[in-house]
């Protein structure tokens, strides 16, 4: 298409990939942490809760900087991961990591809220029928939490599509590798006359996020209908 240049299409594809991975990879730990916060009592629970919210509280630049310090090739975790072949620094995986971490609080909150709304009496019913805690979680709690998971996922996806500050600070803005849509938009906005180009990218970004939003609405309505019975 002539709407966007090849480099811009690259940014679109990369943003999609980053947002999808940020969301999907965030789900398992997100569900775990949400469950822990909703249902368990353990020392350090408030610390965990605080940590989860940190990316929300900190200016994104700070989060990006902290990521650079820890997951950069010279950072303590980054160096260790590099040994086993996992690289985040200046790689699209790093953009996904940054987006995932920025989106994590949103994911966790939504899922946690949904888990808290699951009637514990249904979980008890599962237990009396022989299901262990893990099975009850998998067969009762988790399915009933689907609306929240979906809701959290779509929030996370939208956030990941829009995330910029932490990403550009952590993995820079390398076309084809770490240049996501928001970074590209940012670059356009930094120079005179870039507004029109920025606007086109904004439109693409909004279109993608809206499509995801509507898909999630349809899906969540279907889930709700199923549970209401029919």
């Amino acid at each position, binding site marked *: 298409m002539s709407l966007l240049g090849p480099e811009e299409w690259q940014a679109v594809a990369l943003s999609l990939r980053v947002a999808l991975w940020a969301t999907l990879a965030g789900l398992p730990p997100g569900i775990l942490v949400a469950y822990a916060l909703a249902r368990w009592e353990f020392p350090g629970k408030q610390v965990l809760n605080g940590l989860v919210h940190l990316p929300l509280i900190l200016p994104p630049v700070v989060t*990006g900087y902290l990521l650079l310090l820890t997951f950069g090739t*010279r950072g303590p975790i980054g160096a260790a991961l590099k040994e086993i072949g996992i690289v985040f*620094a200046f790689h699209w995986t790093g953009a996904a990591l940054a987006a995932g971490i920025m989106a994590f609080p949103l994911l966790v909150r939504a899922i946690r809220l949904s888990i808290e709304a699951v009637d514990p009496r249904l979980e008890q019913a599962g237990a009396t029928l022989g299901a262990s805690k893990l099975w009850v979680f998998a067969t009762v709690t988790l399915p009933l939490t689907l609306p929240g998971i979906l809701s959290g996922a779509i929030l996370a996806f939208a956030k990941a599509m829009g995330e910029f500050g932490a990403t550009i*600070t952590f993995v820079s*803005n390398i076309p084809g590798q770490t240049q996501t849509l928001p970074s590209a938009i*940012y*670059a356009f906005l930094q120079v*005179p006359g870039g507004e029109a180009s920025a606007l086109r990218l904004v439109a693409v970004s909004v279109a993608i996020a809206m499509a995801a939003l509507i898909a999630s609405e349809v899906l969540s309505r279907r889930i709700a209908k199923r549970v209401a019975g029919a």
Partner: protein
Amino acid sequence: GQVTVFAAASMKTAMDEIAPLFAEATGDTAVVSLAGSSALARQIQAGAPADVFISANPGWMDALEADGLIEADSRTDLLGNSLVLIAHDPQATPIEITPTLPLSEMLGEDHLAMALVEAVPAGIYGKAALSALGLWDGVAPKVAQADNVRAALALVATGEAPFGIVYATDARAEPGVTVLGTFPKGSHAPITYPAARIRDGDSAVADAFLAFLKGPVARAAFERQGFTVLTE
């Protein structure tokens, strides 16, 4: 070969022109990562795979040099820029910027748009210039500091602030503002964009790229943007 260039975001337009020309001329490709100088410098400190760094101010280049991260020999002051006072009013008549300029009175209740005066180069230069002219104390409470020059420019362009201080390169391309005057050279440290090769980088292609930047093709591109080219 390929060269990865970390360049200040304000150079986007120029770099977008130069990179394909470089590829055409040398057969090598230049990948340009554009972000704030501070972010780029920190990334280089953290081991970013950059070969060339072009900073929007000497401060961060100095910091990298102190850390031994750049080839000191390769460092050049590539570009220069000047600082201008702009107004929203299209009918505004040019004025000379002197210590007697009644800037505070001109502002009245309104704001003077600048970049962050302690953090962002354009802001730092602007504050230095106003101080040198003895105007700073009068306008300080009325300064609206944006996080970058472009945002300061936008404030004036939308009319939110009647006046602002930005780079000449930015003011030139924005139809919504009128340049009232240029700050005298001596009122602030020279505005330079240093470029250098990163120590761990691929030296051959990087050197070629740096050379290309200093060449006539790049010079034309820079000048179209309103930069002063400092290299010969």
